[in-house]
């Protein structure tokens, strides 16, 4: 059996080693790239909103320019060659 006092004494004596310079470099590195969770969540939200707005905008643009040219209507009576009189779009 180990006495309580003896155990506390052993804890006091324990001196684990550490390379302070190496750990400082790691802490410093993490500090630079450290992004608080809240800021990260905000940045992510802005990104998602931006992405969805961009998606809506581009789908709107796409729907506006959905008129794909399918064929031309020529006037066959013209003697000086075919003249386009109308266009047929796929919309």
């Amino acid at each position, binding site marked *: 059996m*180990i006495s309580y006092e003896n*155990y506390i004494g052993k*804890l006091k004596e324990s001196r684990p080693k550490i390379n302070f310079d190496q*750990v*400082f470099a*790691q*802490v410093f590195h993490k*500090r630079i790239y450290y992004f608080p969770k809240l800021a990260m969540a905000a940045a992510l939200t802005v990104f998602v909103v931006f992405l969805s707005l961009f998606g809506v905008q581009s789908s709107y643009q796409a729907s506006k320019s959905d008129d794909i040219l399918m064929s031309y209507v020529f006037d066959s009576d013209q003697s000086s060659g075919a003249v386009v009189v109308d266009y047929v779009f796929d919309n």
Partner: protein
Amino acid sequence: MEFTLVYDQHKELVWRLVSRFVASRHDREDLFQEVFLKISKALPKFRGEAKIETWIYRIAANTAINFVKKQQRYSWFKRTLEFLGKEEAQEEEREEEVLFKPLAKLNPRQRMILVLAEVEEKKLEEIGEMLKVPVGTVKSNLYRAKEILKKELKSYDKL
């Protein structure tokens, strides 16, 4: 106050505390880093209401308590990882880990209060201020921690 200066002046203090609070070398270094990351984040807001040493102890103690709570929550996951990948610990490391086994019987707050009071030899009032709890709570936790530890130590022949 500059972070580098705070680190240089208080690294020993933080290391002493965390190395008497968690068992494995890996955990100690993780915890030590976490404490200084928090200090660096909170330093611009430090207005000097408390002594810087008390302020650092407060951050270190609370970070350490939360660190162990988190570890306990995911202990099954950690054990699995250790089982899958960890190499055999060095003899010296194993001895240190054995030394901390009895402390593992205490909950994180009891453990911190015991380490601060008995190993770091801090006054109960100081501990109360660090952990932001009444002195009565410190006293009762310390009493309970000593009882648990004494009972636990009965099953050890040597450490």
